């Protein structure tokens, strides 16, 4: 395991204050995150759930049909209309969200010092989402992982919890190889209560293994959001000079290449990889979104949340 480079540490320290930068969050605070498929819960906030929650709220009347419980008849309505109506309720429940953040070494990469590394970008994104949801009274949990789960912070609400999340995010040093499949399977066992699972990673792993695990979240009736974070160099491959490319996670793996000659083939491989993720996620009703680190964070969140609405 390699430690974070000095550049990465310095970069995150500088960003520690900006994870909750009001300029970034002010734009998002007026938006609402609504789960599309979390329907079990009661309406107790802006996230409606078909499941039982803390409070009960009237939803609508419907005419009595044989088989309905007698105790659910609204006798006041019978007095007005001389007909039997059943009173139906919705429960408003707090959303329970799990932020799954990839902290492997591959995330510790930036095209140059003028841009955020992938991990910095992902951590800022996670912190922003956490702030948004905690402000609405939702519960937010955080999981950082590489080959396995590094730390699991259970979902809770409240501003004090936000501080705990931020402190952890600032302390994380990306390292180790990426094995999303086993890590996510381990998490799937821990997260029993249905909620919103947001996975933030570069997903540089075997797509089959990752997608299989994401499907298992869906089978447990979780809403799954996938944020794939990639660097500009990875997306565009703008190198010109003869270069030895060394794997950031395995120094032994390296290749001498003339970038201009290999660029087209590389981009084709990358597009195939990204295309597979998009296609499978769409098929399994998993909301997928690609964030290049050059995309301004607030713009990316605003654009995404508007789409979610």
């Amino acid at each position, binding site marked *: 395991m390699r430690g974070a480079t000095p550049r990465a540490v310095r970069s995150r320290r500088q960003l520690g204050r900006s994870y909750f930068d009001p300029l970034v969050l002010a734009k998002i605070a007026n938006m609402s995150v609504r789960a599309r498929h979390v329907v079990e819960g009661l309406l107790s906030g802006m996230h409606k759930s078909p499941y039982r929650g803390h409070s009960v709220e009237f939803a609508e009347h419907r005419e009595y049909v044989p088989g309905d419980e007698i105790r659910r008849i609204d006798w006041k309505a019978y007095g007005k209309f001389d007909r039997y109506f059943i009173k139906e309720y919705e429960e408003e429940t707090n959303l329970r969200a799990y932020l799954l953040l990839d902290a492997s070494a591959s995330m510790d990469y930036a095209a140059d010092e003028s841009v955020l590394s992938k991990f910095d970008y992902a951590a800022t994104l996670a912190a922003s989402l956490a702030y948004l949801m905690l402000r609405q009274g939702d519960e937010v949990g955080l999981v950082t992982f590489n080959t396995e789960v590094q730390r699991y912070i259970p979902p809770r609400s409240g501003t004090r919890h936000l501080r705990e999340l931020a402190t952890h995010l600032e302390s994380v040093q990306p390292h180790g190889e990426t094995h999303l499949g086993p890590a996510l399977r381990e998490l799937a066992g821990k997260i029993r209560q249905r909620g919103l699972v947001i996975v933030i990673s570069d997903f540089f792993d075997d797509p089959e293994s990752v997608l299989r695990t994401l499907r298992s979240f869906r089978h447990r009736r979780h809403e799954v959001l996938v944020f794939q974070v990639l660097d500009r160099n990875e997306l565009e491959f703008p190198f010109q000079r003869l*270069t030895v490319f060394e794997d950031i996670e395995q120094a032994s793996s390296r290749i001498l290449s003339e970038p201009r000659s290999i660029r087209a*083939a590389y981009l084709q491989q990358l597009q195939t990889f990204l295309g597979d993720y998009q296609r499978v996620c769409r098929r399994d009703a998993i909301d997928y979104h690609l964030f290049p680190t050059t995309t301004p964070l607030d713009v990316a969140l605003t654009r995404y949340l508007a789409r979610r609405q």
Partner: protein
Amino acid sequence: MFGLMFLQPAFLLAGLAAGVPILIHLINRHRALVHRFPALRFLLMADRRTARKFRLYQLLLLALRVLAILLLALLLSQPRWGDEASAALALPPQATVVLVDNSFSMQFRDGQETRLERAKTLAGQLLDGIAAPDSAVVLPLVADDADTDAEPPLLGADAAALWDQMRAISASHAAVDIAAAVQRAIEILQASTAPRRRLMLLTDLTVHGWEGFRLSELPRVPEDLVVHVVRLGSPQRDANALISGVRVTEPPFIEQTPLDVTVWVRNHSDEPVRSLRVDLLLGGETVGQQLADLAADEEVAVPFRIVAPQAGLHWGEVRLQADAFTEDDRFYVALQTVAPARVLVVDGDPGTSLFDSETFYLLSALQPRGSLGSPLFHPKPLIWEGLEQERLSDYSVIVLCNVEALSPQVRQGLHQFVADGGGLIFFAGHQVDATRYNTLFYGSDTPLLPVALGEPVQQSEEAPVTLQLADNAHEAVAVFTGGAADMLTRSRFYRYFSVAEDEAAGADVLLSYDDGRPFLLERSLGRGRVLLFTSTADRDWTDLPTRTAYVPLMHSLVGYAAQLSKAAQRPQVFLPGPTSVRIQGSQEGGSLTILTPDGKELLSRFARQEGIIEAPVAEYTVPGIYRLSSSADTDYLAVNATRAESDFTKLQQADLQARWQPLSVILEEEAALGQQADGTALPGREIAGILLLSLVAVLMVENVCANRL
């Protein structure tokens, strides 16, 4: 047997540079950047597809670059291929003298370049083919005087030295002396030990300069000399129109009077020329424009009439519509104009009426009569008593007509007036007493008379004397030379003063009576002139004032006394110099400053010769107006390009061969140089073109490969 030879084998060493791309390739492999990259898996997958192709391209690129350098080295070494090349390798050393025709006709342009520039380019090609043990030297056909006197250059094979010799050649205005140039070349070749000798002449073959050349007349011509003439331009005569001369008439040029300018334009061509534009410029401003039609080989006079500018020195230029030989399409002229001369006519015997006065005829003769009414003279009559009140310096000429005597102050003033450049004229009369005059005007401390007067001579009414004009007439009476002399000799004289013969030696006799006694004498005094008429200005002693000759004679003499002759066209010369200039100097001598048209200022010192200095000048190298200045005077000199080379009639091959007898001349056209199998052309076939094409092809393929990588 075919072979390959190199004219510049040293450049083959440049082929070693082929190792440079290989070195760069190896160094770059070790200097590759190391970049830690997360998405290596995609690179690995991509590399499986492209790695082999990439390496292949890299090797191909490397091979192409090495090949390009090798081809370039081959190209620079100027290889020649063929059996001639092999033969050349086996030939004994050869000494070559390249004579480049730099006569002025080589400034003719067939296109953008002059023939001289093309000749130098051809000479450069020939020099590139010279390599030890062969040797060469480059000479101009027309050598400067300095070159002629210098030691002849040595034969050599140093390309840089040969190129320097060639670059130093420039067009010359000097007369072409082909015999001298060939003699010089032969002497150089005879001093060489090389068994083979050749003379290469690059020329336009215009006939001028060839008239006096016969090889057989030169001493010691080597029999084995190979003569190779390369002709630049066509064998037919080239058309050329030129300005052959310009003349401005009639001097003196008085400001604001009309001037007639005649420009002679010549057509050196077998075809007529229509509507040829001729521009006349004065001080840079166009003052006239004419169109001229010229038949083949015709010269026409193109007239202009302009108004003389304000008094002073002026320069002008005539421009002909430009043709392929522009050097003779311009002609520079310089002229001086003056204001009308103020003449004070002093009457020593004023009559009761104007008609009876001594000065009646003279004043009538000097009155303005010009076609534009502009006067040549401004005469002012004065009775002798008023002379003391006049400021003499206001006048150019003072005429004393039958004046009895003058006060010492006036005599002193007149003496100073003449010394400062004024003109003084004495007319005799009944009030003139020889003894008194000699005392006042000849023997005094302020002498004015050219000679001492003798006793009056009286002729009878039946046998008066007349005038006679000497064959070599003085410039003051030059107007009567030729048929006009009769006008002068018809006048009759009944009385006149004789002069003391023994004292007349210092004076010029301008006109004499037919008995041999002088009628008109002149002597210079300081910067001025004094004229003495031994007879009267009116009809008292002669009928000259009633004769036709009187007016031109008075005009001519008063103008001479006023020194109006300078108000004429200023001297002009044709290149090359040297020439000499005359200019007014100071009494003590001085220096002459020459400002050339190209902005150089030249200073030469000279000795005084009676106030007029004459300096030889050899500084004229470019056509234009040269400004000459001394402490006392300023003048212009118009310098024009030589017209000797303006006729482009060509020497034909038969005539050329005849002039080179007993040797045989190889005549080759400029475009075909190097293609004759005569042993004088470069050996072997030129393969530079093939190499160049190959190099371009290799570079194009390299560029395509480099872009694909």
